[in-house]
């Protein structure tokens, strides 16, 4: 199980919690579990998010590993100029 921290705009969608705990060993599995366990997050996830794993911003790759003690934070998807 991995704790996933949410930006505060998402917290009302999960009962006010600042993080949720889901199962997953990769970024892709985490996102799948978030969709399954917290359907209210679906539109936000569909719009695109980055996942920060232990300080590394994962913008696209679903195969990046996540460990149970990893710090995982959702962030709006990155782009640039």
């Amino acid at each position, binding site marked *: 199980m991995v704790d996933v921290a949410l*930006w505060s705009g998402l917290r009302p969608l999960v009962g006010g919690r600042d993080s949720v705990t889901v199962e997953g060993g990769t970024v892709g599995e985490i996102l799948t579990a978030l969709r399954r366990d917290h359907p209210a997050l679906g*539109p936000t996830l569909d719009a695109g998010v980055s996942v920060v794993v232990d*300080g*590394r*911003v994962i913008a696209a790759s679903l195969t*990046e590993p996540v460990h149970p003690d990893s710090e995982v934070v959702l*962030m*709006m998807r990155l*782009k*640039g100029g």
Partner: protein
Amino acid sequence: MALDSSKTTGFKYVGTRPDRPDGFDKVTGRAKFGADATAPGMLFAAIKRSPHAHARILRIDTTKALAMEGVKAVVTRADFATGLTGENWNILENVMAGDTALYDGHAVAAVAATSALSARDAMKAIEVEYEILPHVTDVDKAMEPGAPVIRTGAADASVPEGLHPNVVRYHKSGHGDVEAGFAEADLVIEDHFVTEATHQGYIEPHACLGTLGADGKGELWCCTQGHWNVQKVCAALLGLETSQLRVTASEIGGGFGGKTTVFIEPVALALSRKANRPVKLVMTRAEVFKASGPTSSTSMDVRIGMKTDGTITAAEGVFRLQGGAFPGAPMEFTAMCAFAPYDLKHVRQVGYDVLTNRPKQAAYRAPGSPMAAFAVESVIDELCKKLDLDPIDTRLKNASHEGTRASFGPKWPRIGLVETLEAAKAHPHYTAPLAPGQGRGISCGFWFNHGGETSVSLAMSEDGSAQIMVGTPDIGGSRASMALMAAEVLGIPYENIRCTIADTASLGYNEISHGSRVTYASGLATIKAAEAAVEELCARAAAKWGIPEDAVYWEDGCAKPSGPNAGDFEPLPIAEITATMGATGGPINGHFEATPEGAGVSFATHIVDAEVDRETGSTKVVRYTVVQDAGKAVHPTYVEGQFQGGAAQGIGWALNEEYIYGEDGRLQNAGFLDYRIPVASDLPMIDTVIVEVPNPGHPFGVRGVGETSICPPLAAIANAVSAAAGVRMRQLPMRPSRILEALDSAADG
């Protein structure tokens, strides 16, 4: 043999300053830019644009235009794909209006003819009947009750109930209890800041040449920061199979984020499909201003609390950005970058993405971040003044560093903010005396940087030289950087390597050249591709010597036996291996495809001296120093150029550049005569200091450098001007009339 070129010291080629590979072509005119493309039988196109800020399109009559001599085709929205959704629909709606013109300059039809003059005449002959609708171009007014609704139902799920329909996205992040934090402060300052929309100001207008047959096969030459994206989007907008459209990127005369999407390319292809001839389309400068993608304008409120010793106790920001008539203003980046330089226990940031009747914004170097820094760093400057604190020491006291929690959530990995502040403090500029009428400003800035999908191919030639194909258009010297990194791995001179930007039919997918990702991501892929080639070179040497492959290593461009037990062989130079590669197993290549996710964030600290003429309100930047963490500067001259370029564009944004809309909602200054970018005589020599805190996510430690340099200038210049004028400047640009107003206002008390 295991091969890993990772290192952060001991480079032979990386970190040197060889001649740029594109220099000769550019100074002799041999380089081919977007408008240089030609084809037999080529037609010329012109676009009919709305003269209204907001108007329903009742009728488009192309009869007269089509009857004119030399006119071969006219297209309207009916000639594009239907049924699109999401961002593809937004892009199509921007490229060619549907039933409503949403801003002054919005395309409503286009024509192709045998000459540019005929095309322009025919464009004028297209008749459009409009029903003019109420408009709004100001971000605050667009959020007010009763403001004209640009589009109903455009808001996504993030927007709280009760907001105006023009608010289409919302962001809120942070941690702690900001009110408790403000209660701990000895001084709290809250202020309101405004910035106007600016344009990237690239010298080369958008240009393309497209050909598309009835069989759905097409070719497109265009100036772009990302031709795979152009391929993908054009295919969607025209209902094509993506792989049937081959896109070649020309040399690019500046992009800065403004060429990360499409504006005219689908139009040229639609006209070509209808006329069955190649079609060339080049924007005028006025069209570039009116109908490409400027930045957002902003309205911002920032509140920061500080103890007398300089400790920030809490910070809060509300950032409202208009992004034109479409969702996408980068308010989440404004919010997330705002307080990133500081280790804050209590912080909250809120962003609003607001629709207005302006062109669809596009990225501009670190989109959203410079405006945030302007607001936040101005308040910190004011706090330092009021509490009599040194601005660099105060920033050092609160600086983010490895292990502290970022304002947007995660803990920081190894970052280099403290190092930039310390280097700035040690720089002679910081303690140099100021002349009367001058003021000094400091600011920090932050940008995330990015990785993204990347493919690179490297091929050895028989003479031992190498060619690299990358898919990221060279917008800042990346061909030189790729060649240097490949030279480092292969152990051959920089001059023996040629790097080419491949077309979409010649290489795997590559994300756009954006997010300061190219030297990081394409560089990483180039290193890996070169390593793959070296592995094969070693294998050929092993086969020649009759020893195991893992008994061979690569050094200084030669295969060598790994020790006495491997055998007594003279080093085998690369050219001797490649000379016989056809007979020893075939061509030797290397390639690498991945989505690198180790981009390292970057911080900068800028020092600016400005002089204000209190009679005219004119400002002159008299000294400027950029200090930035590059991770590893692969080609330091290019890195310094990026630093200087960001500062120069920031000077323009801070002092002169702005989109000016009239009461009628029309753009008043669509040309470089009235939209004033800085020229050489407006700029001081811009000093640079490259800080190198290696990024652990790149084999050589590279961090992106292209965007962070534009994050601090607005604030650093505003702080310098405010110090020189003796009055806080809260609105950009700080044009002379605005400075005089501020001086008068201060004098009136």
